[in-house]
């Protein structure tokens, strides 16, 4: 074949003209990306040190046009760009996160840490898989030999770490030391777009004044995934992002299983010495839900409500979401039904309720999903519930699974209205679970609120491994509630306990009288769930008391009473899923429970380590001189089987936190 012929053939190939709409859409998207790029360049100047210098003129612009989200599929641009220049985004993000975490931390991950940490590797691989475009910053980085560290005017050494993509840099982080001129301190600190509710830690309470503590259980684990993500980026998480009970409940504990479904869960109580304060004791309350045998699983009627707004267009969002849904699909039986509703600029039903037996149809629908548009969460919720109700089956588990990366921009923006809506629907028998993807746009608080009102769980999914944990291993628990409105009340014995403090569960506190009021909603527990709550108590006579007793209080020793060997009395109320009246379970917490051995002692020790970690991340107000190293030592001794490596991963996270916190604060 000669050249002329080749040219002819290639030249003669008919190229049908592009569709005018496709053309317009492409141009609009690119313009939105352009706007976003400019915004990012301004905002995250620090992260784009090199780029910034190359297009330095942009810096002079003080104000830019705000992105018009409603107009064109705006967010997608941002997200897509993240994908385009993943490497640089990592840098910008990490830096931004560091700023957001409060004290300025500058990070340097040593090679060993990076190599040790599986989470980070996973994420990087994920990013690399999607790394499509030429990422100019990487190329630039490689060309420039690493400069010697320079010291700026204030005499600080500023380092930035830049993760190279595995494809380009062999997986070894490249250190880039920007010259002083490149490092511009951020103009304002509060640029984090992930929103968290600010909650004070539970205070120490005096038994003499407040002998009864009441709270609702919580089986969410979203906080753990968020914390892990931040730490894997080398930053300490925002304190408000750390919910200790969610860290503790992330792990599965080997508590004894209940025998029969009529009594849906078993409580395990143990008392251990507090590792961070001599003389204090920790009361562990462990609850293990009844595990449904696969054969007796009820049918599922699921409606996936998927966010395909532009911002989902990042490797760790839409593709991860689709893969997660596929994992979930594998755990369903052929008679279960699945429907898919997507929401973005407009909400639409992608798949009518379809039996899982027609799996190909469902898979095809998932594969067709594309991101684009702004988020109209509320409209989608209406459609999803309508579908769930259309195929409502009293004997089945009817659930809407909402997967999103954040806010609900359009539609019912009034949160109360949205909450009410979900609550009303809950009473009709349709529950809601919320899965969060990605970071940067997450509205954690809204996610939590919606899930809590919809009798479901909120989970943050950052990796496929996490998706497997949440959707496959815990599929039955997330899907099959075995008890609802589970409340815990602990009545402390003032003769044995001077002070107590509930670790975590701040957002779940209930009033004392709410305990026996069946109208008051509380958390739900699913098949096989474990829930752990820890109280730290100061025994009577200990020097550790935080609160001085009143001068006029009688201190006369009380003679022997019938409850002399009891620290407290534990009461749990729950309703079976189809009941409106609650049932009460009670267990005394006795001195005898201090001598726990074997598995339950190990599980208590693990929970203690996680609780200590959470408290350190929140600032260590009550943990005295306890350090991350102590946490590691404690956790190492309680790893147990750890079949999927979750506990080993936790220990790595503690190491990362230690590294991040050891760096000098500005």
């Amino acid at each position, binding site marked *: 074949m000669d050249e002329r012929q080749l040219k002819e053939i290639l030249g003669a190939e008919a190229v049908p003209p592009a569709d005018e709409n496709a053309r317009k859409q492409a*141009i609009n998207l690119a313009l939105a*990306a352009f706007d976003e790029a400019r915004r990012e360049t301004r905002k995250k100047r620090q992260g784009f040190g090199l780029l910034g210098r190359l297009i330095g003129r942009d810096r002079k612009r003080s104000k830019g046009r705000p992105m018009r989200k409603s107009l064109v599929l705006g967010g997608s641009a941002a997200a897509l760009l993240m994908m385009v220049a993943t490497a640089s985004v990592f840098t910008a993000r990490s830096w931004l996160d560091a700023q957001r975490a409060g004290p300025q931390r500058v990070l340097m991950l040593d090679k060993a840490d990076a190599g040790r940490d599986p989470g980070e590797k996973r994420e990087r691989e994920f990013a690399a898989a999607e790394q499509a475009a030429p990422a100019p910053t990487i190329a630039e980085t490689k060309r420039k030999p690493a400069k010697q560290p320079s010291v700026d005017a204030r005499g600080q050494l500023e380092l930035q770490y830049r993760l190279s993509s595995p494809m380009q840099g062999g997986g070894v982080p490249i250190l880039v030391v920007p010259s002083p001129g490149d490092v511009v301190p951020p103009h304002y600190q509060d640029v984090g777009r992930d929103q968290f509710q600010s909650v004070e830690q539970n205070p120490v309470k005096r038994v003499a004044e407040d002998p009864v503590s009441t709270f609702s259980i919580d089986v969410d684990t979203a906080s753990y995934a968020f914390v892990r993500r931040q730490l894997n980026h080398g930053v300490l998480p925002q304190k408000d992002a750390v919910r200790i009970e969610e860290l503790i409940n992330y792990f599965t504990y080997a508590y004894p299983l209940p025998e029969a479904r009529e009594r849906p869960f078993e409580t395990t109580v143990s008392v251990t010495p507090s590792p961070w304060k001599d003389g204090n004791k920790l009361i562990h309350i462990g609850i293990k839900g009844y595990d449904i045998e696969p054969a007796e699983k009820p049918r599922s009627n699921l409606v996936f409500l998927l966010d395909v707004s532009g911002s989902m267009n990042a490797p760790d969002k839409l593709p991860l979401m689709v893969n997660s849904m596929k994992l979930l699909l594998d755990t369903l039986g052929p008679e279960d039904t699945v429907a898919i509703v997507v929401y973005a600029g407009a909400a639409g039903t992608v798949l009518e309720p379809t039996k899982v037996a027609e799996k190909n149809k469902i898979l095809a629908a998932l594969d067709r999903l594309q991101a684009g548009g702004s988020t109209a969460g509320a409209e989608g919720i209406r459609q999803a519930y309508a579908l769930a109700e259309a195929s409502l089956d009293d004997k089945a588990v009817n659930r809407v699974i909402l997967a999103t990366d954040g806010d609900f921009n359009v539609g019912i923006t009034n949160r109360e209205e949205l909450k009410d809506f979900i609550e009303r629907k809950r009473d009709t028998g349709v529950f809601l679970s919320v899965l969060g993807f990605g970071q940067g746009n997450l509205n954690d608080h809204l996610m939590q609120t919606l899930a809590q009102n919809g009798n479901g769980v909120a989970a943050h999914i950052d990796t496929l491994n996490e998706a497997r944990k949440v959707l496959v291993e815990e599929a039955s628990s997330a899907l099959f509630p075995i008890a609802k409105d589970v409340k815990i009340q602990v009545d402390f014995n003032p003769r044995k306990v001077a002070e107590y403090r509930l670790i975590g569960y701040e957002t779940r506190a209930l009033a004392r009288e709410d305990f026996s009021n069946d109208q008051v909603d509380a958390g739900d527990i699913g098949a096989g769930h474990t829930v752990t709550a820890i109280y730290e108590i100061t025994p009577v006579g200990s020097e550790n008391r935080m609160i001085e007793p009143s001068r006029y209080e009688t201190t006369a020793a009380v003679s022997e009473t019938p409850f002399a060997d009891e620290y407290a009395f534990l009461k749990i109320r729950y309703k079976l899923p189809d009941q409106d009246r609650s049932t009460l379970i009670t267990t005394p917490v006795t001195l005898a429970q201090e001598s726990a051995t074997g598995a339950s002692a190990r599980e208590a020790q693990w929970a203690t380590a996680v609780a200590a970690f959470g408290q350190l991340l929140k600032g260590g107000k009550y943990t005295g001189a306890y350090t991350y190293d102590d946490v590691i030592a404690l956790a190492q001794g309680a790893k147990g089987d750890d079949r999927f490596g979750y506990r080993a991963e936790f220990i790595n996270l503690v190491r990362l936190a230690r590294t991040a916190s050891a760096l000098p604060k500005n």
Partner: protein
Amino acid sequence: MTETSETDLIERAQRGDRSAFEALLRSHYDAMYRMAYKWCGNREDAQDITQTACIKLARSLASFRFQSAFLTWLYPLVINTAKDWMRARARHPAGDGKDPDYAQEPVAEQKVYAGQVLDRIRALPEREREAIYLVFSEGLSHREAAQAMACRESTVSWYIHEARKKLRSLREREARHG
């Protein structure tokens, strides 16, 4: 568009001028779409690829240094996007990727042969295929193609040599059977 006005547009867009960027996009959309179409051979994919490439352009325009013609700089952007797109497609196949409107129209024998050659070209290793496109379809010199492909000129020549060898075997088979 004259060269100066193009340069001017790019410079303005690099400084953050939105309207300049828009004008740049409008004037190059068709060229980008054409490249994408030649690579994947169907309209749907080509539009999607072009869209992705446009978005990438918004971010990476800042790194254009005027060291080559803008179009030459655009080729790898579009072609890399196309490659990734087609790879992603291969992982999740949905149909055969051909545009039904154009594939099924009645064609003369000559056209059948041309179609076979095109199919054959699309089956070539990516780099060889890229070289063939840049040189024979886009009319670049080996030197310009080398710039676009970020390799040496002699490598481009070698890719083309290899590709033609493979295409020739098709021709010979054709001759034997024909």
